[in-house]
Structures are given as structure tokens and as C-alpha cells.
């Protein structure tokens, strides 16, 4: 870890101002300090944003406001979140380990960087780090993307992003002097196009809160990992919909860990709209979601896992109480 300066800010204005000169925002720090220890991130200044007013609360309403500094554990253990947004709670419960969830924040989870093992290897200068080659494409790519809009195939790994995408959440960021709302798609759009991007946030953009509409929809989240717990998802899946019997409406089905962005296909959502859920419909949805998948040498197994997760997550929507 290189030396740096540390300071605590109390207003978004000062946060944005203080971070400008090669700084990084410090909240939970799990992702950032890991990158700094491996010299992948070399900020000259850490701006502690944990004391920013209003960023540590969950405020209920027509649209819930979840502060950027709410910890993942707080989200996981909030009884109301569990009741109203079970998919979000389930996604939170799968983040890291209890020790990580106790410090990791909602903002940090959304803004975390790639876990690609080439990107994280300190001695590999890959495309994502400004090099010329994505080594994963021809190399060890079992954890990598099935879909990408650019030569880098490292996938998004934020559980919360996947769940929040299904819930049509907006992420409110501070950009310069403005508060700007971004959809989850917008939050990650740049990562689809730009190999060096992990998300669409600029260096001084600061996540303030997440707003989740309470739309009377059910939600669910599932993931498959190599280990029972404390492991990254090989594939994750979140779904949300209004449910009447087996009929779904306002459907969102989103995959994680298969693309640089939480992966959503409008045609699949539309296909499910207003229909009774059955296996044929699910197969059609899966076809719509996965038709553009381009597996590499070692990640083709993600396709059957994605299919199983889509099926199970949709079933969970209609069977959960």
C-alpha cells in the first residue's frame, strides 16, 4: 500500500472537492483496501465519507431511501426490508462473510471493482488496468462473462446491483454540484462499452443513496457458487414481479456474474408479462435471455446454471408467501 492522506468530510460538497486530486472515497473499505494492498489502486488521499449526514439510514416511503453508508449487514437484518424487498435481503445475505457485511456498505457494494483474477493479480497488466490484452479470453475464464460489449470479459459481481436492477431502483449520486439519479443500467452502462470501467461513475462521483420504489411486487434472489457460503456467485439471478396466482406482471429478471452489467433482456421481461408461469414459458424466457451468450473455453457451464436459476427464481416468486 502506498502512503496517502486521510480525512473525514461532513458534506457532499467537501467530499467531492477533497477527492478531486487523486483521491478515493473510503466507506467500508473492503474492496478499496484490497486493491491498495496490491497496488492496483494508488490513491494519494482517502476521503472518509462515513459521516456524511443522512447516509446511514433506511427511510421508508413510497420510494424507500437506503443511504449509501448503510451496511450490508443492516440491510440483511432489517425486518422491513426482508418483508418488502425479500430479493434485496437475500442478495445482501449472500455478500461475503458476516465480518465483511458488518463493514461493507451499500454504496461500496455497488461501486466495487472487478474480481477478475487477472485484474487482481498485481503482476499482470491486463486490459482492464490499461494494458493491451484481456488474458481471460484465451486463458482461465471459468468465472468470466457470457456477454460483453467490449474485449474485457470480467463480470459485475455486486449482488445488490442485480437485486436492485430487478426492483427498478435508482442510485442517487452527487456529480459536481448536482444530485443525479441513475438507473442500475445507467450506473453500469460504461462497463459494457469500456474495458477499463467498472461502472459509470467518474472519480469524483459519489453515491449518496439508493431509492427503491415500493411497487407491491414480489422479489427473489438466488446465486450458485462453488462453496456453500462466503463465495462469489458463478451466476446470480434476481427477479421481481406482481404476482396473482401464477400470473406475473411488471416482470424483471436479471442475471449477475455473466456480463459487465447486471444482465437484463427486455424481450424476456416482456415475454413473461401477463402470462401464467409454466415450464414452457420459462424455457422461452431463458432462450430470450441467453440467446446472445458467447461462452469461452471454460465458462459454458454458466449457461445451464443461469437457466436453472431463472427457473428457480421465477418459481420462488409465485410460491413464496
Amino acid at each position, binding site marked *: *500500500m502506498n502512503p496517502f492522506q486521510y480525512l473525514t468530510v461532513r458534506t457532499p460538497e467537501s467530499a467531492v472537492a477533497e477527492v478531486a486530486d487523486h483521491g478515493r472515497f473510503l466507506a467500508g473499505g473492503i474492496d478499496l483496501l484490497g486493491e491498495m494492498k496490491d497496488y492496483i489502486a494508488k490513491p494519494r488521499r482517502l476521503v472518509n465519507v462515513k459521516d456524511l449526514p443522512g447516509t446511514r439510514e433506511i427511510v421508508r416511503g413510497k420510494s424507500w431511501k437506503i443511504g449509501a453508508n448503510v451496511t450490508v449487514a443492516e440491510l440483511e437484518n432489517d425486518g422491513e426490508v426482508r418483508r418488502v424487498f425479500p430479493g434485496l435481503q437475500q442478495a445482501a445475505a449472500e455478500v461475503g462473510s458476516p465480518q465483511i457485511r458488518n463493514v461493507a456498505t451499500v454504496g461500496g457494494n455497488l461501486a466495487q471493482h472487478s474480481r477478475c483474477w487477472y485484474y487482481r493479480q498485481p503482476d499482470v497488466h491486463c486490459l482492464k488496468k490499461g494494458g493491451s490484452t484481456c488474458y481471460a479470453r484465451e486463458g482461465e475464464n471459468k468465472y468470466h462473462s457470457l456477454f460483453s460489449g467490449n474485449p474485457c470479459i470480467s463480470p459485475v459481481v455486486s449482488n445488490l446491483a442485480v437485486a436492485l436492477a430487478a426492483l427498478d431502483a435508482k442510485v442517487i449520486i452527487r456529480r459536481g454540484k448536482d444530485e443525479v439519479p441513475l438507473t442500475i443500467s445507467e450506473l453500469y452502462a460504461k462497463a459494457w462499452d469500456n474495458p477499463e470501467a467498472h461502472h459509470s461513475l467518474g472519480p469524483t462521483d459519489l453515491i449518496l443513496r439508493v431509492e427503491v420504489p415500493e411497487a407491491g411486487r414480489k422479489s427473489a434472489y438466488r446465486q450458485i457458487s462453488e462453496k456453500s457460503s462466503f463465495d462469489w456467485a458463478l451466476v446470480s439471478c434476481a427477479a421481481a414481479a406482481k404476482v396473482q396466482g401464477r400470473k406475473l406482471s411488471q416482470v424483471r429478471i436479471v442475471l449477475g456474474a455473466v456480463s459487465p452489467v447486471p444482465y437484463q433482456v427486455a424481450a424476456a421481461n416482456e415475454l413473461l408479462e401477463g402470462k401464467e408461469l409454466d415450464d414452457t414459458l420459462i424455457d422461452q424466457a431463458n432462450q430470450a435471455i441467453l440467446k446472445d451468450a458467447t461462452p469461452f473455453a471454460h465458462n459454458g457451464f454458466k449457461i*445451464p446454471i443461469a437457466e436453472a436459476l431463472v427457473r428457480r427464481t421465477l418459481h420462488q416468486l409465485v410460491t413464496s408467501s
Partner: protein
Amino acid sequence: MPSWPKKLEVVGQPVRRVDTSVKATGSAKYPSDMQPAGWLYGMIYRAPWPAAKVTRINLEKAKKIPGINAVVAEREGERTVRFYGEELAAVAGTSKQACLDALRAIEVEATPQPFVVKEEIAKNPNSPRVWPDAPNLGEANVREHGDVDKAFADAAAIVEGFFTTPVQIHHPLEPHGNTVSVTDDGTTCWASTQGITSVREGLASYLNVSQDKVRVVTDYMGGGFGSKFGPGVEGGLAARLSQIAGAPVRLMLTRFEQSLAVGNRPSSFQRIKLGASADGKLVAFEMDAFGTAGIGAGRATAGGGGGAGFPAPYIYIVPNIRVKQAHVAINAGQARAFRAPGHPIASFGMESILDELAVKLKMDPVELRLKNDPSEIRRREYTIGAERFGWKEKYKPPGSSAGPVKVGVGCGGATWGGGGRGSHAEAQINPDGSVEVRCGTQDLGTGTRTLVAMVAAEVFGLKPEQITARIGDTQFPPSGASGGSTTAASVCPAIFTTCTSALTELQKRAGIDNVRGDNWKSACRKLGVTPVVAQGRWEEGLSSSGVGGVQFAEVAVDTETGFVKVRKILCVQDCGLIVNKLTCETQAHGGIIMGLGYALYEERVMDSATGVVLNPNFETYKLPNFADVPEIEVVLLDMPERGVIGVGEPVTIPTASAIANAVANALGVRVPSLPITPNRVLAALGKVKPASTAT
């Protein structure tokens, strides 16, 4: 020839460890916790290339970093780098931060060279050579007896398979390393080691001083599993840094470094053909296998504990065999002995092909083993185990369970030598009745210190907690290094004979026939001011060698996602005289859980293009999580008449085989490669195009 008393009071009982309290309260000081006055932090600079010619190492800028007291090159002059992470230089300074900055100030001029890190590519004669004077693929070791071709021609059933096992990394939780203080008066080294004596030898030779000038201390150490015998390059560097800086240096490796340069279990690629008669008698075995021990393959070390060879055919006696085994060198860190070297590899191939045979013959796998296993003990264990496990009810035809989550069962067996000899010890009975027993062994977490206390307590008629067991110091009478499951069998007899001598002398000097138990204090008071001090050593008659064990596994496999959940492992193990029932069981747990990791999660991943290790951490080098650990049942066969044997290694051998067989039983198809990860399960089920291991 001494023998254990017929009636044992302490030995064989479940006895709490004498040192868990200090470990659980955080007061136990490990070598990595040592902070002698004026200590410095030490770190190593490692090659960032898998192969390179190094022409110059500039340490001057590193020396100028504030807080840096010493910087050394591992070797002077030009050198060749043969694996990613090879040690090139080291620094010592007043803080970790200073050392980190110094490492980044080291400048190395080097020309990267061609390299190869995948076994199947390395054995191609056109691949870059790891060692210029020899092909990567060493000459095969070939063994043949009987008439293999005829036996296969006559066999009623023939099965073939290609099985692979990964490079596994030891990853003891305490990293390799030492705190070393080199002074003109002598050297003290707090070593995280399995062999204080071997560290002393290594350091004395490295420093070119006599061994009496080096003291090695290991009160506690955080695991080794075969990878921590000598001082290592890191120990030598720490000693030199201490010499230059004139201060103690603590140099512990990082988790990253643990993945590169301090040992691993070799990989294997085994093509096996097995033939049997119609009634299931094995008649012919053929194997063509290779594996890598990293840069060690093909070198002098390849034949040792870190080599890529393994026993074949494992356990079973086949009248006609042809076995061809070869080592292939790659540009990667060298293998070292790893808990039961060779055996888990051998077991996986053999037990897998045996279950394939059982399927082909439509025979119960346990029955097939009972028919072919030459060990009477193991056959008995299979019978006991099958009954406890409910094998008859649980074993169903492969792939026959309903639903997407399929259950299956499997089993496998193990053999191990164990045994041990050569320990010395010293017992001191003080006039106040307190007892000190000293032995230059070390406790790796196996419970050795507790065994010392127990055996002494047995002889003296005292309780283990009344004994002060002092181990882990080269100032005590020498004992061997702790490897090969030999420690208990080497140490316990030495403690027994030593304490027996001390007891005899106490009886003589106190003039009391029975000084044990209730008479102890009054007898000791008669010693006046001079304690009883007795020395002794290992003697024949109290220990032996050779154990067998079997394990049964039950798994549930999600055929839609490839996820494997192990539900239960049953272990039936013999180990001669059980010294401490409690810690013996815990050893079995440990072996099983390590075997679980080997079966399902662990694999060092190297990158062809860059030659680096891609998973030098616990994030992607996956160890079993708490939630992955199944129900474990242990049945110990107690055979006191055989004396102490040792159990640390056999209990890890058959776990992966049993799990792999259970997965095959669940699926109806075999996953022939470890670890059995979702991608491999789904590939075996034909749900994805199989990934080529060559890329």
C-alpha cells in the same frame, strides 16, 4: 523390551489439550508473534517473471528508504529465474510500510525467457525447457510383472479411465517464516516449523557456524502439513538480514507468497486400465501417468516426499501389472511433502477405476473391495463401516435417485506406515512434587504436548495437568522432525521409558515401593533439595507401524447447477494404541476436512500466457467453508497390543476418493477430475462442452 501396562489409566482416555487455553485466550506466542527487543520487519522481493535471466539487481535505492536497516540479494551475480515468485532479495526495516516501500524501490534488470506452466504442454518436446540440460518430461519409471496383455485378453471385464488431480497448496494458516536473532554469541530462531532440529542444521550450515551456536524454539506453530521442515530460503534470508542489521528480524511470508514458493502437492494425470474376472477378482492393471512437482520434477528431489510419483496400483494386489510413471517439469514452485505424499493421488485413481469396475460387473462396491483388499484390518473396517453407514440401504444403482438433486454414496480405503523412532527425553521430578518433562519435539496442532503430559501422568500416577510438558526447543533432548505420522510413535515411547527410569530412581531415593498417585507428594519430599533427573529414549516394544482406514461418503448433487453437497463422512480407522481418544478423533476430522477440500474446492491455477499463479489467495484458492463441512462420524479401532502408531496422514487419504465415488454413484457418470466443481459436474453430464485442460 518395555511394554505398555495392561491396565492404562490416562492413556486411551479423552483428555483435553494442555495448551488450548493459551491458544484460545490469545496468549500463546507463535513464531510470527515474537517481538524480541529491537526487532525488525522482514520481507522478500520475488521474481515477477516465470522465467528470466537476471543480469543485475540494484538494491541501493531500497537501502535509502527511511526505516530500512538491511537489504540483501538472495544470490550475487547473474542468475536464472525458473518460476514466478522465486526469491531474489530481501529487506528488513522498522515497519512493514518501510519494507513495502523498499521492495518497490528494488530494481532488477532481467530478460524474460520462454516458459511453460501447464503439464500437458510441458511434456511436448518442443515446449520451452525448464532446465536446459534435460527435457521437461523425465524418464518414466516403469514396473511390470506377470503377463499383462494375456491377463487383459482373458479378463471378463475391462474398464478404462483418465483421472486428473490438481496441484494442491498446503496453506497452513500461520505462514512459513521465522523470527531470527543472529549475534556473535549465537543465534536464536523462533521457527514456524515441523522440525526444530532440521531448522537448526539448516541455519548453522547457512551461517557457517557450529550447531551448538544455534537455538531453535517452537513453542507453538500454526500448521505445516509437510511443508515446513528446513529454515527455507526465507529463514536464510532472515538470518542474513539479522546479521547485517544487528537486530532480530521477523520474516513471515504473506498468503500470496504461500501460494508460490513453499511447496505443494504434485498434480497427476493417470490413464488407468483395469481387468477382472467375472467374479470380480482383479487380474490386470495398467497405468500411464505423469504429474508435476514444479521445477522440482526431474531433479534430485523428485524421488523424495515432494516428487510426483505415487504408489500404484494402490492398496490392491493385482497379479499382472504394467505401470509407467513420469515427472514433468513446469515453471512453477517446487512440490514438498504434503500430508500422506502420493497417497490421496494414488487412491483417487485406483478407487475411481475400481468403482467403474463395480458398475460394469453390477457388483456392490464394498463387496468388490472385500474381495480384493489384501488387508484383514481394512476388510473388517469395511464391514463395520458399511453397517454403521447403512450402506446396504443407501447404495443404489448409479444415477437412479429421482429429481434434479441426486444422492449417492461411495467409499475408499487407505494405508499408511506411521511408526517412528529415535526420540530422546528427560524427566525431572522436583522435591515439591512438580514434574517437568522435556523433549525436543514440536506440536503442529496434533496434540503432541498433551501426549507428553499424558504418558508421564500415566507412569507417575498423576493427572496430565500436573505435568509440565516442555517441547519445541533444541536445548531439550533431541527428537525427530514431525512428518510421516511418526511423532506420537516416536515421542510416547521415549517419554514412557524416561519417566519409568525417573520413577525407579524416585522409589529408590525415597525408599518407598509405591510412589505413584497418593504417595507422590510425600515421596518427593524425601528428595531433599536434589530433584530426580532421568534421561531415556525410544525403545522397541511400545510402538509399531502400518495402519489401514476406510471412509464412506454420502453426497447430494444438484444436476442442474453442478453443486455438490457432502452430507456425511464416516471414517473407520485403526491406529494401534490410541493415546488420546479426543485428539485422535480430532485428527480424523482434520484429515477428512482437508480431503473434502481436495475433493471439491482446491486447485492452484496457473496462467499459460503470463506464467503467474492466478489464485494466490483464499478468495479463489478455495478452502472448505464452515458450512461445507458435513456430519462426520469417526470409528476408531483400538489395538493396544500394537503400541502407538500415528494417524495424522491416513485419515486424509480416502476422503476425496469416497466423495468422487459418491458423486459418480449419484450422477451415473463420473467426474474424473478433482476438484469436483460445478463446471466439471455439468460437463460430465454433457450439459456443456468440456473445457480443455490444455489451455
